[in-house]
């Protein structure tokens, strides 16, 4: 499953293709990276209108300059303990595929770190934990940069099409 995801997202598969620029952000103690080409913008926390009948990780919708876009809280999505929002909490707006064209989705994260250029040598395939955790399918690979490990995410699986499939089950 995970290799399929990689193949779909990165056209050709293999860790080599994953090299490139990543926006890294923090969730609890973990560092994540997301392909910079998917990122539209980073905005500070703003008032979120809760949308009923959605999974808990869908925090609601915001007004992004006249457009209404959904915001997901990644901590909840990844089954991590939630915490109070701080002034570093922000929303990364990514553009992902949905069934009908691209959509913009906000990802609520603890803080945004930096943009890293990650080379192919630094990337390892995602580890296998042998669990049935579906969230693992969103992991493209692990990057070791200056002793830190960044978890590279596939935006489409986290908030795009992949999510769509799950939502339709609800």
């Amino acid at each position, binding site marked *: 499953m995970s290799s399929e995801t990689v193949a779909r997202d990165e056209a050709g598969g293999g860790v080599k293709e994953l090299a490139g620029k990543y926006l890294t952000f923090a969730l609890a103690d973990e560092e994540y990276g997301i392909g910079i080409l998917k990122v539209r913008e980073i905005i500070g926390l703003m*008032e979120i*209108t*809760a*949308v*009923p*009948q*959605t999974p808990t990780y*869908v925090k*609601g*919708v*915001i*007004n992004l300059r*006249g*457009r*209404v*876009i*959904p915001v997901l809280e990644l901590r909840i999505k990844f089954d991590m303990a939630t915490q109070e929002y701080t002034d570093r909490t922000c929303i990364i707006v990514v553009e992902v595929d*949905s069934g009908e064209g691209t*959509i*913009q*989705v906000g990802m609520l994260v603890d803080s945004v770190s930096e943009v890293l250029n990650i080379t192919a040598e630094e990337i390892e395939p995602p580890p296998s934990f042998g669990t049935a955790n579906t969230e693992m399918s969103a992991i493209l690979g692990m990057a070791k940069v200056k002793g830190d490990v960044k978890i590279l995410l596939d935006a489409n699986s986290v908030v795009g099409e992949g*999510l*769509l499939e799950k*939502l*339709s089950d609800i």
Partner: protein
Amino acid sequence: MAGEQMSVSQLLDDLAIKILVVEPGDLSAVGDLLEVAEQLLDNADVKGTAVLEKIVTAFKKVLEASIMGELSDSPENYDRLGQSVSMMQEVSRGAAGDGQAVCKLFKEIGYEIDPAEFGLEVSDAQDGGDGSWDDVDPDEIDTRFLADPELLTAFIEEAVEHLDSVESSILELEKSPGDSEVINSIFRSFHTVKGIASCTDLDRISNLAHATENLLEEVRNNRMVMDQAATDVVLAVCDRLERMVENVQEVFEKGLDCYKSYQVDDLVARVETVMAGQVTAPPTDEPPPVPEVAQAEAPAPAPVQAKVDLGSGDLPDFMQDADLVAGFIAEAFEHLEAIEVNVLDLEQAPDDMEIINNIFRPFHTVKGVSGFLNLTTINKLAHSTENLLDDVRNNKLTMSADIIDVVLGVGDYLRSMVQNLSDMLEHGPGAHKEFDISDWVRKVELLQAGGSLDGDAPSPSPEEPPPLAPAESPPVTEAVPVAPVVEPSVDPPPQPAPAKAAVPSPPTAKRAAPPKQKIGASIKVDVEKLDGLVNAVGELVIMQAMVQQNPLITAMSDPKLNKDFGQLSRITTELQKTAMSMRMVPIRQTFQKMTRLVRDLSKKSGKLVDLVMEGEETEIDRNMVDSIYDPLVHMMRNSVDHGVQKAAEREAVGKPGKGTVKLAAYHKGGNIIIEIHDDGQGLNTEKIRSKAIERGLMTATDNISDHEVNNLIFLPGFSTADQITDVSGRGVGMDVVKKGVDKLRGKCELISTPGEGTQFLMRLPLTLAIIDGIIVRVGQERYIIPTIAIQESMRPRAEHYNTVQGQGETLMVRDSLIPIIRLYHVFDVENSCTDITSGIVVVIENEGRHRALLVDELLGKQEVVIKSLGGYLKDIKGLAGGTILGDGRVGLILDLAGLIGASEAMGHPQLGHARGGVAGDAGMEGKEEVEA
């Protein structure tokens, strides 16, 4: 002998068609052609006509040569061969045959014929295009171009536009010579001018444009450079063309007295000189720059051929020029619609020449443009129908029901062909479908020959275009023309209200003098741009409200500021209104489709029905046009099928034998009302009532008015055909109607009087983009309830509150028990008011169901711009979308059908906890209290 002659012309026709569809490199097609040519040569009549034999022989030789690869197998050559077939046709009809033209034509192809063979004195076959004009008396005014004012208007409008753009492009080119983009645009302009001019029978303009186009073609293919001489000559051509077009316009507006005879030979020659001076190595298959000589010389060219030949030279594949094709598609749909409307009028007044002309002209236009675009099948079908109509026009034939049926059928068929074209444009050539027109052509020709149709010509209903293309389902006409461009203010040509067609004396005078269209009064705008504008204006209105509500601003009490704000909001409101109105189109087109439907339905059911239409000029959002079509069709069908009785039945109850169905549209209270009113038998209320009781929707003792009972038929699943159709009619597709109208956030209503008829009302919002809503607060959340669904709101009193078996809650509102939906419960909102008596209930109605929504507070009424929640959030039950509220936050708009569904699915698990409400926040104990 006559039979033989017939077969020659048949063979020639066959040849003409085959040559049109042949493609370079398709040797088997060339083989077919060869076969026909040989058959011709074997024909006794051909042998007897020396000239014809010569041409056919030459034709055959050319084909052989191209199979052997001795001659170039280019589209241009096939065009010329097509022209030669035209000549053959003329000769076979008895024309003398113009040997000079034939020689020249074949010389162009690359096959030399000895002029002497024709026994004709040929002096300057090699000369350029000059000769062609010498044959035409320069002073003789050729008025053919005045035949079709619509086409001419379009021509003038477009030509002026193109010539303007050419001029500026050339000047641009002078600054940056060699810019291929600019050259292409100039080329395209000339190409278009040439094409439409030839369609409009403006040969000289077409010729001149064609010569220039040839020159530009060379430039485009880098065979020559755009030097000073070339630039000058193109500019000169441009000036001349402008003057000619101006003159055409003058003639069109003021009459023939203004006609000036412009010669183009000098310029054509100049263009050629420039070309000859530069073209370094003209490839063998390159046409000498002779503009359509054959066509000009031929006194009466076979129309199909001539039209096709004219513009096709550069369009081996008609999809090449997508702009032109798109334009054609939009136009063709309009014309086909006009045809349909006029044919239906004609049925009422079969002798009205003006109507026949009105039908003839669009066919003529469609034929012309399709020919120019190389759409041979469309061209052929339109052409043969045009011929048929021409005979009617010239009193050679009398209009008959057969002809009307066939013309309607052809119209439908053409429409499916054009639809396919549009599909191809959108989805690529893969969408191509084969259309077999031979059946229709045969019918048309049969009628033209004075015969009548064996058996009844199928008069297909709009949903079933004649399935002549076997194994392939032709595009359904229901996929109504979605033209890629919108014409916000161009009304279809004025048509007499078909309502009046029922009146014995149709207002012919009105038809006879269609007002002249103002040239340049409208522009075509991309729909996307328009939507963008409307959205931006929506944002502007919101932003203005946000600024105005800013606490800092409201704290200021500056009279100047207030005044300015007042002015600002007036301007934005005006802007919004204008932007909205640009998307509005008259409902006429949709209504006109109903005319056809009623005609077909009444024919099929053997009833006499008059359709009376009112308020066709009422404007609706163009995005709604498609969506109201289905509900309308169902309602009209119900009215005709089930409402109106058969003539005998009607007469038995003292009504006129002919039933009347009225279709009306008007504005009322910020809504558009569409009304369908029949004078039929009305609903069988008792039957519906018993059905409702049977289904447990009500009890026999319920005191429900007939009106309410009648409206039960809108309930989903309530009525299906086998349940009540047999007895009372109504019941087919009411669900579809209701759903369709709901989707548009409209409302349906039925008023039926037994024995007198049924009135069906559709109440629709003016636009889909904006919704009128009440903003309510629940906890910290705000929701918008569409005003149209709200019946009342109140602060409930404890004595009106009941529970049902501890499962549901109801509120007594004016003697009816209405289930309560606690919005905070369904939407899981925290910190909201749970006490019924301290909250507010809003009574809403949806699909006949009433519910009382418990909310904390009403915040106000506002028009909001609907936005999709985006991506995967858009299908949430109970939510129709979101909107940006005055403070910039997102508010959610309720979808009541979904909300009711969701609340029913959820049940009331927390009822015990929640309902403590009545006596305060009493929690579980509340339950006992209430039940006690």
